[in-house]
């Protein structure tokens, strides 16, 4: 585990080093944070510290950026990230009920992770699948034409998969 983290860290360092070669290297901060999140799933403080130092960017500035953009997770996330689309099309077609059902089922609010670290609940602004609204995305997979019942069944399916694995 520690080794893996080390490997990831090295990959991040290489990425930063490449960005630092470019003109206006500061401007690659968001790209670096994307990379860090891709590697670690979220932005651990130690990683942010290192990014700031290596990119020669004040830590406070980095923190301001990391907290501004909703895409960045500041806390570890669950195995499955459920993004509930709250775009207009989904909203008009009942996304709120879907969201409420998920909240009830998982016992978490938006932005939180379940105690078993299985699910993290996010809201999303239009996943671009308006045709099959309302939709949710679990990790990279999109599920459409949902309602409160279907979504609970879906969650249970994921729970089962996790148990088997």
């Amino acid at each position, binding site marked *: 585990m520690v080794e893996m983290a080390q490997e990831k860290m090295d990959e991040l360092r290489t990425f930063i080093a490449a960005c630092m070669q470019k003109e206006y290297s500061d*401007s690659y901060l968001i790209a670096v944070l994307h990379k860090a999140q891709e590697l670690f799933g979220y932005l651990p403080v130690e990683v942010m510290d290192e990014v700031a130092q290596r990119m020669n960017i004040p830590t406070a500035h980095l923190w301001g950026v990391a907290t501004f953009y909703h895409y960045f997770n500041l806390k570890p996330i669950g195995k499955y990230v459920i993004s509930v689309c709250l775009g207009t099309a989904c909203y008009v*077609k009942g996304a709120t009920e879907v969201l409420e059902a998920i909240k009830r089922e998982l016992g978490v609010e938006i932005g939180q992770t379940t105690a078993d670290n299985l699910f993290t609940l996010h809201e999303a*602004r239009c996943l671009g699948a308006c045709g099959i609204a309302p939709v949710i995305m679990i990790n990279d997979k999109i599920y459409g034409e949902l309602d409160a019942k279907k979504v609970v069944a879906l969650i249970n399916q994921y729970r089962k998969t996790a148990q088997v694995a």
Partner: protein
Amino acid sequence: MGFQNTETKNSGNIHFGMRIERKATVPEVHYKITLCDGTSCIRKQSKQIHQILDQELRKRNLKEVVSVHLSGCLGMCAKGPILIINPGYVMYGNITEADIPEIVESHLVHDTPVARLMVEENHLYNRFFRIFGDVDFFGKQMRITLRNCGIIDPENIDDYLSVRGYEALAKVLTDMKPEQVVSEVKKSGLRGRGGAGFPTGMKWEFTAKQPAGEKYVICNADEGDPGAFMDRSAIEGDPHTVLEGMIIGGYAVGSSRGVVYIRAEYPLAIKRLEKAIAAAREHGFLGQNILGSNFSFDIEIRLGAGAFVCGEETALIHSIEGSRGMPRPRPPFPAVSGLFGRPTLINNVETWANIPVIILDGGEWFSGIGTQGSKGTKVFALAGKVRNTGLVEVPMGTTLREIVFDIGGGIPNGRKFKAVQTGGPSGGCLPEPYLDTPIDYESLAKAGSIMGSGGMIVIDEDSCMVNIARFFIEFTQSESCGKCAPCREGTRRMLEILTRITEGKGCPEDIDKLERLGAMIKKSSLCGLGQSAPNPILSTIKNFREEYEEHVNQKKCRAGVCAAMLSYTINDNCVGCGACKRACPVNAIDGTRKEKHHIDPNKCIKCGQCYSVCKFSAVAKA
């Protein structure tokens, strides 16, 4: 499906399923005729031609096998009236009533096109007719930006090349000076498609006039309106068009660097863009000395990270620079001081996608499409309570009614139309009386909405307008960057007031407060997000005031959406099956088997479970 005759085009209530059933029993349509129904063609007697055509078909008993459609302006006004026959995409121009019998006889009966009436068209738009035939979904459309979407393989540059891809670039490099490119764009009358509608040519001119040196060209692909996905589809379907537009823009303003700023939430679009950029480099459309000329240009991709406000150009620039995406006051405008403090030309995806067409078909041609003040076409993402959801591209000047009812097919499930929302969280809700508003920047603004980037949500009687307003302000307030006080504090207060109203706790002054705050926020906010955030509320108060008053005064939500004002009761239809009792998550339902059940209103959380499980229509909500 093409047999729907034009007489029914405005009825808007033909159900899809019905048509499919009928389809299996009717003979296959052999020919589809598209008749241009643009203003110019109408002026040239296209209506009469339509009549004659109909008579001719009837006379020859061809009504069953030939379908006739009216289309929006086809952009061929100089040669109008225009009539197209598919398959084969044979186009007849300058036709008169007298020509019709000949066309019918020769082309439809004997399968021999009438050579003397055929006109060549080498315009780029509307190629979909050849591929899709014409269906009523496409009939009123005119596809310039989306001309290749759904037709070519977006990951294969050969496909793009085969449809005159990069020819506009080559043309520009071969025989146009940068000033000529700018003036062509000015001539076209193209206006920014991101929402505000600033004349694109003027923007180009400002940037071009800045002293030479490092300049930037940016494509704003940070499409953030909830319910809008025009730009994503455009990039996913035809990424090279956008790149070609940007390269031409770079040439025109003297820039060698382009940046596409795109939402991280669009992984496929990003992948296709990356692929397209790589292919364009390989072919020498990007890089040093493009196509052997002295012009060099390259494009890099920068990702957003989930902030709607980054669609605002100064916020977008800050985001590319690696900072918090907060807008700054203008002037200086990006054309003078933009990315890294350098002159910068920013246009959105749709605007860029128009450029190659304007170059190849000419600004003058382009300016012939649309209305006085708004030229060309506009793409809308049609969604909500409408039969055909999806992307539509229509000439400016098309009415809302045409989009909602002709293209969108009207409201499903026999419900009644209530409003159409354009411009997303920055726009407004327009009720029935505004349906004949032609789509252009000024008319929509006058009606109390905006063009916006192209979201179009149809709302039916099942939606509560107060709740819709609340939805939009919740969105804008959570996307407010927090920099300026009116937007940061004001939108939150508006949300609180609306929440109060939808929860049945509103008071009459609340409506005045909303108007007072709304007017102030509109005029005082720093950027477009704040300046337009009150629009959904102000427009719903203006057009649906009685709904607000009902919520406030009678604690009533006529659409049955606002849960707090609902109560569920069980009526005499109840057979005592117990399904509702089992479904109730809070044990609010009581009753013995086979007897009428009862809901305890104090326990009821109004989740509606009982309502949806009851098979006997015994649960009533009011």
